[in-house]
């Protein structure tokens, strides 16, 4: 009887402890939960990026790195490796500078599509959902409270959808990764991280 009551007290204590731990961990998790993507309001930022471009039939991805900055109305997408190409997207248009040469206006073509995605990322970070909705069918995927949010962007324009494919953006307090899934098995993964040198905002 005495042993039984001791065991019962121990079990009760363990249960109580485990509950306390569980509740405590829940509190901690709630404190770290990501805001909803619609709540993002980042007016300026600078991030390092790494892009891996996977092409069907090619084993190794094409990898490029650089800086992505957003300030006021201007988005700067500066690839530094393996080539130095700085693309500036502003209300005045899109310019490109290669190897530090004077910037030149970009003709329609490949760079236009990249610019479109870049401005979309900036729009998402700034909470400009009207602009996003003007180009994409935007779906916020349901995720559990402790996960990063996930937003999918499908171009409204069918022809654009053929070229761009579907874009999946994942993040928490800002955009962390972008996955672009194109037709024919091609895909691109872009990861954003803190800027080396500590300029991230």
């Amino acid at each position, binding site marked *: 009887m005495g042993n039984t009551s001791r065991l019962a007290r121990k079990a009760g204590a363990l249960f109580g402890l485990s509950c306390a731990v569980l509740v405590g961990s829940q509190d901690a998790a709630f404190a770290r939960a990501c805001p909803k993507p619609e709540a993002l309001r980042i007016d300026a930022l600078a991030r390092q990026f790494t892009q891996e471009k996977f092409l069907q039939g090619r084993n190794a991805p094409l990898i490029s790195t650089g800086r992505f900055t957003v300030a006021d109305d201007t988005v700067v997408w500066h690839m530094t490796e393996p080539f130095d190409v700085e693309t500036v997207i502003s209300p005045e248009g899109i310019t490109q500078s290669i190897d530090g040469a004077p910037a030149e206006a970009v*003709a329609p073509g490949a760079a236009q599509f990249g610019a479109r995605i870049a401005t979309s990322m900036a729009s998402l970070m700034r909470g400009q959902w*009207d602009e996003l909705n003007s180009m994409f069918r935007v779906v916020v995927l349901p995720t559990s409270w402790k996960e990063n949010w996930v937003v999918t962007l499908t171009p409204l324009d069918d022809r654009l959808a053929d070229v761009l494919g579907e874009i999946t953006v994942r993040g928490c307090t800002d955009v962390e990764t972008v996955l672009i899934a194109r037709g024919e098995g091609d895909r691109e993964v872009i990861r954003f991280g803190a800027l080396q040198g500590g300029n991230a905002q």
Partner: protein
Amino acid sequence: MNLGRAAAIAAVALFLVAAMFVASRVQDAIDTDILSLLPDDKQDAVLAAALRSANSNASSRVVFVVEGGAVDQRRAAAEALDDALTATGFFQSSLMDGETLWRWLFFNRTAMLCPADRDRLEADRGREIALDALRQWYAPMGAVSSRLLETDPLLLTQRLTGCIAPGAAGVANNPSIEVISGVIDASVFRLDVQDRLNVIVDDWRKDRADQGLSLHRAGAVFHAAYGAQQARNQIALIGGLTLSIILLIYWLMFRSFAAPVVALGMIGYSLTVGGAVTLFVFGHIHVMALVFGAALIGMVIDYTSYYLVTGLGAKSRTRDERRTYIIRPLSLGMLTSVGSFLVLLIFPVPAFQQIAVLGGAGLVAAWIATIFLTPLVAGQKTRVGPAALWIRKLVGRYLSRRPPGWVGALAIAAIGLVGTAFAIGAIQVSTLDDVRKFQSPSPVLTAEEARVRELIGFTGTGSFYLVRGATPEEVTTREETLLKRLDDDGEGHSVVWAASRVDSSAGRKSADRDLIRTRLIEPHFVLLRPLGADKEKAYGAPVAPTTSPPQIAASLRGETDGIYWSIVPVTAAPQTSFEFPPSSMHVDPAQRYSRLMETYRRLATWGLVGAALSTAFVLLLVYRRLSALNLMLPTVAAVLLTPLIACALGFPFSFFSAMGLFLVAGAGMDYAIFQWEHPGEQGGWTQVGIALAALVTCISVGLLALSSVLPVRALGITVAIGVVLSLALSPLVRSRWGGSAFSGGK
């Protein structure tokens, strides 16, 4: 059955056939193209064809921009508009052009080069192109794919697209608007096409009035629709006013409701028969010819007046007597008027040829109705209204005067003097030939177009370069030389489209193919090795011509009388120092048409001299005496003085004024002939008829001065002044100058 009754039955049958014909054809037969009013260039058939092609290309394009409101609503609204336009069956979206263009450029990616890339390769800087492609492959989120890696790793198709359609960037980068653009694959000057588009736009606006959305339009079709609506309003206004005033005048003249009914019947009969003949001859009728048809009301109704006044006065006449009384002057007047109208046929302006047929056939129909039908329905006797008495007392007295011989001599001397002064240029009236001043555009449409231009950089173009050659290859080669020279002179940016940029000459393709192979692929493809690109797989296989050149290229090319040509639309004229390559020229259609208008104004003026000679010939043939030429004095004087008076009133002389003078000549000769045939007291009531005819013509045609279209306004003012002068000078026919006066009534 006597001859008169048989003729009446035939006249009624003619009307019924004409009415049925008009009813079956009129729906799709109304042309509202303002350019149809302008003359074709008969001296240069190639230029005329190029102008038509350029006009057609420019006029068929439409752009809609949806702005404002929430994004979802804007997009849904744009889709709804696109669906509605596509459902018409005559709207083709530009998206299709883009796909066709891409396919064509892909097939020609190793055979065509942008000018800048050609310069690069000629300077042996092919490495820049290869490196550029490599950057694009690594660039974040570039529009590249594994399929492109297989087929075009140098991204040559993208480079071609970028230099051929540089204007697409503005549209692609503006997320706050939705743009729908395309081509109307039917005549934009067809009223049913215009009405359909107007209904779509009106419904769209009505359905979205509360969504904060606005729609801006650009395209010639909307201006044409505006012009057509203006014309319809003017027809309704001028026709309605004319009818009302004429009915009132008739009632005041004859105190009879039968008289206005007869007059209305006469109008309906003449216009129906005239319209049927015009439709039969041309297959369609210009809306401006219909406006002139409103003017014709004033002329054909004169014939009713001439008949009705024969029933005035104490002397009672039978139907046959009344008919006999007017048949000779009426026939002669009709013949001279029809002759004047037919002179219009010599001018190569379709709308004016239609007016000639409409006017000529309408007057013949009026003559038929007056001689064979009016006597049956007008009754035996006409009552004398207060206006008839008033006109007889005041105007008739003046018209029945017989001016002394010296007045006639003086008139002839004055006419000779003024005519000579005109001929040698001593008298010059201000002229207007600039077609850009013919019609004021809608301020609403102008504002919408300005907004479209602001939002997407849409630039309407009018002028173009015309290049000719003996073969299609020669034309394309010459066009390429022209473009090169423009680029060298820093004017290449003015070129909107060029067929040779989309589909270059065989010689150029061969040279470009060599350049691409020897200066780019062979030496620099190796740069793309890290991508795993296979040169032979991508560019080794011959390019199969599995698709034809895009419509945009085909629409800029043509062939006329064995001469091949192409047009290059531009936004600006070249510098005066620009040296054109062989068989190339810059064409400004507005300037060109203005110059043609000047030429035809001069020709029409000489045509008036021809009409006068023709009338003189008819008069001498009919009367067989020199003094019959007296009949022409009032009309010739009126034709000479009218432009001077119009200019003094601020209305410059134009081609259309000259056309109006043909009507003056026709109506004026009628007055003179009736004055000649029924002189003195014997013709007292005839002079009332002449005054009534002049009054009615003056009112009906003079009201055309209310029109917003200069050609119509010029006609109205010219005819109003000319008719008043013709009436005022008509007593000159009784001048004793020239021998014994007149026999009259024979």
